[in-house]
């Protein structure tokens, strides 16, 4: 209780909310006091703003910005809001029209933020407590991926199959300026159709002639199909054979 009531007593509530502007003191014929007080009396129509020169206040604010603003951005911002309000209000007063819009009618409504003080304090405590808990973010690692079961196949088996495929590949033609590119999902469709329920070696699956690039695309698509369960691999006598997996392919993705 003690710490809470102390915090309540210490909280400086200004008409600008819980965050007080820096103590900019204004001295002129019509008014003498702080920026915060000026803001209040202008809002309550208790003073003729036309009698208060705003230029010196702006200058004092700039001086404050140069000297101390870095220390407390919120206070500086609050002061800026108050100044902007005063300037706009005065600008309207200087216009010939008699109809000054009522700018701050809703400002009179109760209750004010002071009554949320206890809640804000509690939220602060909860915030600190919550910082001691850590959840799995899921953000950094993207979608959670299920651990994959590929049986007795090792990455080395896959690499051997790929190597023998590359050995057969033709060099890529260099003169094409803009080779047509397939998306991986299109390539997966092609590879899936080449697969059947009977296991075949990679050599049998790919029809000559093909370039190295095509071989790479083929192999990447095959790996992706294995990953999503639409293809499976098995080893017989040291060679890898591929067939369609249990999972049916999804609808072709939009192109």
């Amino acid at each position, binding site marked *: 209780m003690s710490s809470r009531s102390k915090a309540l007593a210490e909280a400086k509530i200004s008409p600008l909310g819980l965050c007080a502007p820096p103590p900019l003191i204004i001295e002129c014929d019509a008014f003498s006091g702080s920026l915060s007080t000026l803001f209040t009396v202008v809002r309550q129509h208790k003073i003729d703003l036309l009698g208060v020169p705003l230029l010196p206040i702006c200058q004092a604010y700039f001086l404050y910005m140069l000297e101390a603003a870095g220390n407390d951005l919120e206070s500086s911002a609050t002061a800026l809001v108050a100044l902007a309000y005063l300037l706009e209000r005065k600008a309207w007063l200087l216009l010939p029209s008699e109809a000054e819009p009522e700018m701050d009618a809703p400002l009179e409504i109760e209750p004010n933020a002071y*009554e949320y003080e206890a809640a804000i304090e509690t939220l602060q405590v909860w915030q600190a407590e919550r*910082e*001691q808990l850590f*959840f799995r973010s899921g953000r950094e690692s993207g979608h959670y991926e299920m651990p994959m079961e590929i049986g007795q196949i090792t990455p080395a088996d896959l690499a051997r199959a790929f190597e023998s495929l590359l050995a057969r590949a033709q060099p890529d033609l260099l003169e094409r300026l803009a080779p047509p590119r397939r998306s991986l999902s299109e390539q997966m469709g092609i590879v899936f159709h080449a697969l059947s329920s009977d296991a075949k070696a990679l050599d049998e699956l790919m029809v000559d002639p093909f370039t190295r690039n095509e071989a790479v695309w083929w192999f990447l698509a095959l790996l992706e199909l294995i990953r999503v369960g639409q293809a499976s691999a098995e080893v017989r006598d040291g060679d890898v054979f591929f067939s369609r997996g249990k999972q049916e392919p999804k609808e072709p993705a939009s192109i």
Partner: protein
Amino acid sequence: MAKALEAVLFAADLPASVASLAEALEVEEAEIERGLQEFGSRLAETSGLQLVKIAGGYQLCTNPIYARPVAKLLKPQKQRLSRSLLECLAVVAYRQPITLAEIDSVRGVQSDYSIRQLLERRLVREVGRRSTPGRPLLYGTTQQFLHQFAMDDLSQLPVLAEGAQLKNDDLQPMLL
């Protein structure tokens, strides 16, 4: 049962409801509740994790005893809210759905900057529009708000001093 719950809760990055757990594990909700109880107390004894009820569901998180080594590894960026953001958030939390003009009037300062910050942090969201002239946007708090302050639901908000208490008409269902 406890093992399956652990696997499922681990994989879910969000609080999981009893209903969704029951569906995933294909058992009755009552069994899930029993399982959660058992699993929760087993964790408390043997594990560096704990089971919490947060933002309307169950989720695994680290036991606060280990906050220090975890923070050392993760080097999390503290995203503590400034006082003025907290004030704005408290006003929204207690008076939702609320318009920007109403927030301004409670706080006595313009709150558009604060609201934008809170929207960006996904602590508040637009929940509809009031059917008064100008159709002003209404704001309310999010699941993320509950999560960030380790609350299960809004009824856990601290009780306010007289005068700022939730009014009946403040509790009308949000217009969507």
